[in-house]
């Protein structure tokens, strides 16, 4: 059985923040924290990158609009040119409306898929749920996870550091 990481349990939010900061100062990078409510301070300590979702939504919107406009252009100019009321084949005013609607659709899709991708979803199981202390029955506390993939990770050393930073319990998490 391979090991995914070490899960340290803390009693309160301050202890978790202090421990996360301490582990970061010791050079750990691949770690994650779990708390029953959002904690703004952790974002800076864990170096959670700023969301790029707005750009994905913008790109989705532009792509949707461009794609549908190109489709209309292809159908009226190339595939099935038909003269309507003497207007030019490429009559952009009404096409803009449909392209705009498609742009909204594209932006919505990009937002939906972007959230899934950014959160690594869909995903059926995550190793942290193997931790006994993280279960529904014993959960509700403040957790700091150090992954074994972290270059600074040494089994005994890391465990000792977490304990010294005030962890109530340190549990090995199987992958």
């Amino acid at each position, binding site marked *: 059985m391979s090991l995914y990481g070490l899960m340290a349990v803390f009693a309160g939010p301050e202890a978790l923040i202090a421990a996360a900061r301490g582990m970061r100062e010791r050079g750990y990078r691949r770690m994650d924290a779990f708390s029953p409510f959002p904690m703004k301070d952790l974002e800076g300590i864990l170096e959670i990158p700023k969301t790029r979702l*707005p750009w994905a939504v*913008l790109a989705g919107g532009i792509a949707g609009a461009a794609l549908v406009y190109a489709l209309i252009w292809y159908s009226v100019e190339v595939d099935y040119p038909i003269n309507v*009321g003497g*207007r030019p084949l490429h009559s952009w*005013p*009404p096409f*803009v*409306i449909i392209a705009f609607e498609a742009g909204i659709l594209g932006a919505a899709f990009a937002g939906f898929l972007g959230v899934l991708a950014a959160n690594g979803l869909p995903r059926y199981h995550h190793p942290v749920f193997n931790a006994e202390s993280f279960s529904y029955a014993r959960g509700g506390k403040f957790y700091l996870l150090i992954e074994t993939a972290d270059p600074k990770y040494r089994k005994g050393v890391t465990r000792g550091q977490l304990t010294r930073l005030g962890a109530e319990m340190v549990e090995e998490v199987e992958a």
Partner: protein
Amino acid sequence: MSRVEQGFLSAGALGLVVCGLGVSLDAKAMLSAWLSAILFALSLPLGALTILMVHGLTGGRWGEAVRQPLRTMTALLPLALVSLVPVLIRLDLVFPWAGADTAKLQETVHEKLVYLNLPFFLLRFAVCAAIWLVLTWIVLGTTDAPANSNERNGKKFALGLVLHALSVSVFAIDWMLSLEPEFTSTIYALCEASAEVVGAFALAILVLAARRAVEVMPGGEEDVALSEDLANMLLGFLLTWIYLMFMQWVVVWGGDLPDEIRWYGMRSAGGWLYLLWLLIALHVAAFAGLLSRRLKRSHRGLVWLAAVALAGHFIDIFWRVRPPLFAGGPLALWHDAAAWMGLGGLWLALFLFLLRRPDRVVWWKREVAHG
């Protein structure tokens, strides 16, 4: 009165003198310029009324923040109505259907004279003005509390919005659309109503941002600054206007009828084409800028966005109203400059005065209530 207000007041007085000179030289040209200026000045109180009543029904922190500037704008409604009087006296100089030689009008317009005639026009205007004055009185009286206390006034605001929508429609058709009586557009009144809201809200944001740090005030949700909420509302109002204006254009383009095309033809010929491009550029800039969260969360960014939207609203009204009445070369624009100076000076002096002394708005209301 502060020195700035005195400065605006004297500039306004000087502008009015020049306007008087303009009337004696060429009354038609001067009144035409005056009309487009006053329609802009009137659009702000009307838009402010709409927003205040909508907020009275919906509530929300965005409206409580901009309530004070909007109330001040609303209080200027009587001034704007009084400023319409010069045009009312000589309607025949401005409106083609009111002229003596109705025989020159198109046949389709002849049938419209059942609606477009002087007595009925004046009656409609009197009814609209009465509705607005009553609404101003009600709105100023019920929104003076700083916190949200609109629960009891819901019915008043709902009925008020219905009346307001009708009166703004009638007014927009009478005073703006009928400048070219051969043109018809059923969406025109809505375009005007939405433009008014954009202008009033943009000015309210500007006033609020000039005095408070809106980018750190709390918004409607956690982690959202008030500036972002206001900017998002502005984006919504702006999109409504863009949508309606685009729809009118697409319908006219689709119909391809000479009477309707002429409305756009006149507004994209000669120098007006530059104005049209400016109008489009301002709104593209406002729309694109309002997508950026960074701009919406910075003080200067928000001020710029609101200023661009307000300038866009001004150009919009000028572009819609001025071309059919304009005669002569670019030099004839001095009439407009005089009208802007006279009206703008007076308007700003009173606006700044009321803004600095919000209690005067209440005083003004009591004065009306008692007598």
